[in-house]
């Protein structure tokens, strides 16, 4: 049916809903957090009523406790209303943080403590081992962006959406609405999302929608996308498990202590916590009353191993009720969390004490069935043989991990429970962080008459379902592809999956009851070692220990790069106390930058022979291709009608003429003999391989912000392109600018090589947009004015517009002179399609930029539009007022001004056939009226004159339209006459340009030079 902001409302929406549904957007408090026990957030003081009459349709504000939602007739209207709503919050002082710390610093500190658990690379060799493991409250924001709809009436609640934890979600919804669980119907997407790994933000979105629907009495749709990542961060960890152990010199563990920090394994939906519906009492009551659940499962600790001195403890407020049936979702999750911590810990002990991980476990097992199973699985998987390293690209590393578990059966009988041993092989791309599960050998001793084929089938389906949230991408500023995994699939679908059946068959066969229970998702398939086995394999492959799922590409990449940094500075830091790890990170950064400064700035980096093409895997090259597209290398490094990236394009600067260099991997004229360090130095510091300084026309000032992973992928991509031998022409710079060594001084004053760091107070979309715009996209290289020495000005001048290569790059701030204000939606159209109906087409140097952006995923282009819109303080969509203003401007320009017959004649002869609407449907006419054209409303005539003389040539952006240049058919005087006419007719409120005559001859001169230098 309808479309709003490019989100097409699905055809499969239940009939009737499409007509009655309204759209909700939530406003979360500036600060809200879950600390493991309690929820803290800023207090809602006041919501100022909306006075803005330009908002179309009805807007409802939903307030409950600290929950604020805006409901309107379209998503766009709701977003716009939410943006304009003034909400006052009282900062929550009592959240256990250091007084006087700014909210940003607090966020950073909190993120740091979570990351401490997430990844650790510290080595220790003492005989005491002590590690902490975490489990996130939300595994991620969801599977794919989608609509979540809730229809809440007095006696029923219907929900359409996605969830991985339907039982827990139903519990939350019952608590929210006071309805009986039977009156709540969930229509959730594919059941394979039920991974058993815990909740994702689908649940939060469902509760948001239900809350708003409950309040307004109509169905409400909420758009679940990466913006929900904020909930993932705010909720932090659901569970912390710390384990410590002491071992004797022989390697045997003497004392083993396992402490679980929190009573529950899951955290309620954010809407429930904000609205106040979930008080601590209510939470306990819900747990106690929900069928099959008590708080007791959190103390249901069990370890299959036998240690001399063992202590397993967990916090619990409720009496243990031993008669309770087990097998609920919560229970399974607690088992997975326990198995993850225990099996990761034993793997760490094994590595730290130089023992084989399997041998260590066998040493502490007394159960003969378990021992036999592990032996069988390890021989089946050929555990002793190293994972083959020879074949395959060299940017990937491989590793193998092991994990084991034994769980009591449904009647709490440990001896009869399922034993499960897993060995996983993974392949990790060091550059992109992508993890591929290449082989999985699972052995299960499931008691009697286990159907091996069935088990294999179940495992295959469930492992795929489980690995998706575990290994998938996540929305982040340096992630490509919107968390949709549209670039790579983390699990190789043809991966070998072997199952050894039970080695022990002394149970009486033919137990019909157990066979029946195998239908559906069998309870007795134990998935709990599945997370630990991947963490252990990842450690084997990368040397990085991940102590908290998920193992997304971004975390893996980050872990590897931190490890590289740590090993460089390891000697200096080995003696540090573990408690000061946060300080350590700061110290590391300092050390790393000190190393960078001490780099041999001026010396050449030794040439290498060109790397072989098969060194890099497809994932790396695909990432590199996107990086190159976002950085738009080809726009500058391709001469007119030249070979892509072979260089030779000329640039007129105030300091003389520069030519771009050959970026193809040709060994003589290109970068074929550049090593990665040489390439990186050039990109971040502007120094060529041979040591000479590059001119800052090459925006290394922006590229310094590019992350290591992107930089390496870009290098890989460029090195496998076809080599083209083209020596670049010599630069023709005026003295003193032809002295490159002066750039060294320039760099020390103007170049900031600090890497990009995201702003924790902003959304993921904003940070992604900022990363792309400030780094790779180098928007400011053209759109920020430069000082007399060619350095970009800062402060209010940032993105305030500048002249580049004879064209004006208009302001991307509030100083924009566009006759109709830009909106985020218009910016997106312009960047994605090369045209916007209220502003016109991309032309001049912007046309190849749009062509480059066409390669990027939609999310990235949206992110750039979002970031630029924020700089302009632009609204989300084009309002009715803006459209009316556009119509009135077009209407006013219909008549030709009197007394300008000369200009009118030129216009009618040369321009009107395409720029005047004359009833005939036309493919070649301009679609946007000149009355809306930014160039005619600018303070300078340059872009208008460039267009008249040179035309519009958006060859690389199909559909944008083309215009011939008139430099050969108009005299300077005619161009002046026409320009004056255009301004009076189409931009009457703009003061007439003063210097049109001089600019015409100057720009014509540039065109003449350009055409003579490219015969």
């Amino acid at each position, binding site marked *: 049916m309808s479309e709003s902001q490019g989100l097409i409302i699905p055809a499969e929406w239940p009939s009737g809903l499409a007509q009655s549904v309204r759209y909700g957007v939530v406003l979360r408090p500036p600060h809200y957090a879950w600390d493991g026990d309690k929820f803290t957030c800023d207090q809602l003081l006041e919501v100022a009523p909306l006075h803005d009459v330009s908002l179309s349709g009805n807007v409802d504000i939903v307030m409950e406790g600290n929950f604020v939602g805006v409901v309107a007739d379209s998503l766009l209207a709701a977003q716009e209303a939410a943006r304009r709503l003034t909400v006052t919050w009282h900062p929550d002082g009592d959240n256990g943080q250091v007084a006087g710390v700014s909210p940003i610093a607090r966020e950073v500190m909190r993120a740091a403590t979570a990351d401490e658990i997430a990844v650790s690379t510290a080595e220790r060799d003492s005989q005491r081992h002590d590690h902490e493991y975490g489990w996130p409250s939300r595994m991620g924001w969801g599977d794919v962006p989608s609509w979540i709809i809730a229809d809440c009436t007095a006696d029923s609640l219907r929900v359409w959406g996605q969830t991985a934890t339907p039982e827990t979600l139903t519990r939350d919804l019952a608590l929210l609405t006071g309805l009986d669980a039977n009156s709540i119907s969930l229509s959730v997407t594919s059941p394979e999302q039920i991974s058993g790994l815990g909740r994702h933000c689908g649940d939060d979105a469902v509760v948001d929608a239900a809350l708003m629907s409950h309040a307004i009495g109509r169905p409400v749709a909420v758009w679940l996308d990466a913006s929900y990542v904020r909930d993932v961060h705010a909720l932090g960890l659901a569970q912390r498990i710390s384990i410590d152990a002491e071992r004797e010199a022989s390697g045997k563990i003497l004392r083993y202590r396992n402490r679980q920090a929190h009573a529950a394994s899951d955290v309620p939906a954010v809407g429930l916590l904000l609205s106040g519906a979930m008080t601590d009492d209510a939470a306990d009551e819900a747990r106690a009353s929900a069928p099959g659940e008590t708080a007791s499962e959190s103390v249901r600790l069990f370890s299959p191993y036998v240690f001399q001195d063992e202590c397993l403890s967990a916090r619990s407020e409720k009496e243990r009720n031993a008669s309770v049936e087990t097998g609920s979702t919560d229970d399974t999750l607690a088992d997975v969390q326990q198995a993850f911590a225990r099996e990761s810990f034993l793997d760490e002990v094994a590595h730290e004490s130089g023992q084989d991980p399997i041998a260590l476990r066998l040493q502490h097992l007394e159960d003969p069935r378990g021992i036999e199973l592990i032996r069988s699985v390890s021989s089946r998987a050929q555990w002793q043989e190293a994972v083959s390293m020879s074949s395959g690209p060299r940017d990937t590393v491989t590793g193998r991990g092991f994990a084991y578990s034994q769980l009591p059966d449904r009647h709490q009988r440990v001896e009869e429970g399922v034993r499960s041993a897993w060995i996983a092989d993974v392949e990790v791309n060091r550059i992109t962080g992508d993890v591929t599960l290449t082989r999985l050998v699972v052995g299960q001793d499931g008691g009697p008459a286990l159907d091996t084929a069935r088990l294999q089938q179940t495992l295959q389906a469930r492992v795929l379902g489980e690995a998706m949230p575990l290994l998938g991408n996540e929305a982040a500023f340096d992630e490509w592809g919107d968390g949709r995994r549209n670039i790579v699939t983390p699990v190789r679908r043809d991966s070998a999956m072997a199952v050894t059946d039970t080695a022990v068959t002394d149970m009486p066969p033919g137990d019909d009851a157990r066979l029946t229970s195998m239908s559906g998702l069998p309870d007795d398939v134990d998935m709990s070692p599945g997370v630990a086995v991947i963490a252990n394999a990842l450690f084997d492959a990368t040397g990085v220990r991940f102590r908290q799922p998920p193992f997304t590409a971004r975390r893996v990449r980050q872990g590897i790069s931190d490890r590289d940094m740590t090993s460089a500075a390891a000697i200096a830091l080995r003696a540090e106390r573990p408690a000061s790890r946060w300080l350590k990170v700061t110290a590391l950064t300092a050390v790393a930058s000190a190393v960078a400064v001490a780099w041999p700035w001026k010396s050449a980096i030794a040439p290498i022979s060109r790397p072989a093409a098969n060194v890099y895997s497809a994932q790396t090259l695909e990432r590199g291709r996107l990086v190159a597209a976002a950085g738009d290398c080809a726009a500058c490094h391709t001469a007119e*009608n030249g*070979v892509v990236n072979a260089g030779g394009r000329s640039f007129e600067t105030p300091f003389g003429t520069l030519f771009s260099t050959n970026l193809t991997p040709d060994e003589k004229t290109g970068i074929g003999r550049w090593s990665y360090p040489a390439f990186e130095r050039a990109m971040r510091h502007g120094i060529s391989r041979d040591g000479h300084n590059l001119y800052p026309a090459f925006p290394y000032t922006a590229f310094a912000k590019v992350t290591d992973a992107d930089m390496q992928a870009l290098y890989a991509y460029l090195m496998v392109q076809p080599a083209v031998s083209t020596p670049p022409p010599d630069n023709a710079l005026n003295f003193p600018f032809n002295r490159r060594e002066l750039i060294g001084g320039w760099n020390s004053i103007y170049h900031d090589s600090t890497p990009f760091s995201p702003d924790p107070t902003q959304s993921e979309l904003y940070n992604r947009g900022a990363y792309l715009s400030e780094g790779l996209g180098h928007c400011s290289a053209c759109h920020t004015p430069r000082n007399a020495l060619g350095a970009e000005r800062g402060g209010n001048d940032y993105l305030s517009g500048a002249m580049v290569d004879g064209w004006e790059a208009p302001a991307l701030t509030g100083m924009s002179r566009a006759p109709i204000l830009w909106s985020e939606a218009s910016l997106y159209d312009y960047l994605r399609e090369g045209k916007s109906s209220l502003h016109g087409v991309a032309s001049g140097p912007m046309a190849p930029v749009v062509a480059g952006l066409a390669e990027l995923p939609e999310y990235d282009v949206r992110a750039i539009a979002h970031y630029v819109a924020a700089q302009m303080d632009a609204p989300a969509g084009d309002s009715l007022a803006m459209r009316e203003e556009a119509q009135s401007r077009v209407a006013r320009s219909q008549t030709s001004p009197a007394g300008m017959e000369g200009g009118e004649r030129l216009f009618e*002869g*040369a321009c*009107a*056939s*395409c720029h*005047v609407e*004359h*009833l*005939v*449907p*036309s*493919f*070649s006419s301009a679609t946007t009226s000149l009355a809306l054209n930014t160039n005619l409303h600018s303070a300078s005539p340059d872009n208008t004159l460039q267009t008249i003389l040179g035309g519009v*040539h958006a*060859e690389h952006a*199909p*559909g944008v*339209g*083309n*215009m*011939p240049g*008139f430099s050969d*058919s108009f005299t300077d005087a005619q161009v002046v006459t026409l320009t004056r006419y255009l301004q009076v007719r189409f931009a009457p409120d703009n003061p007439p340009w003063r210097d049109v005559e001089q600019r015409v001859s100057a720009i014509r001169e540039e065109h003449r030079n350009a055409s003579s230098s490219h015969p």
Partner: protein
Amino acid sequence: MTQTLTLTVDRKTHVLAVSPNIPLLNVLRNDLALNGPKYGCGLGECGACSVLVDGMAARACVIPVSSVVGRDVTTLEGLVVDGRLDPVQQAFIDAQAAQCGYCLNGMIMTVRALLNRTPMATATQLRTALEYNLCRCGTHIEILAAAQRAVILNAASSQEASHE
């Protein structure tokens, strides 16, 4: 730099190795030997080069050939179906609306595009539609008469078509 482009012109598919940036007109005349569209001003001003792209008028001298990939291009030649002239072509013959005839391709294609959207175009609408098609011989009166006859023939032919 040449590329291999697939074009649909007059209901036939052509695979051509051409530079994607050269004007569509050059490809039609030089590579496909379709000489209905004429080279006039080369700046999109006179309309002699007009063709239809997806049924809309297009000045073939100013659009790069790459911009019509995946679209239906129709030239003056392509208006003839199974040996039968398009009613607009027939009307221009009936009204003998030519002196040198160089502009006629554009006149016919523009009227065709107009009638696709406005089948019962009035005399004033025809005048506005043809405002930016130039004729140097001064045959405007005959051309307008032909255009008005085209409306009648076109209506008759579509009625016929709906009866078949």
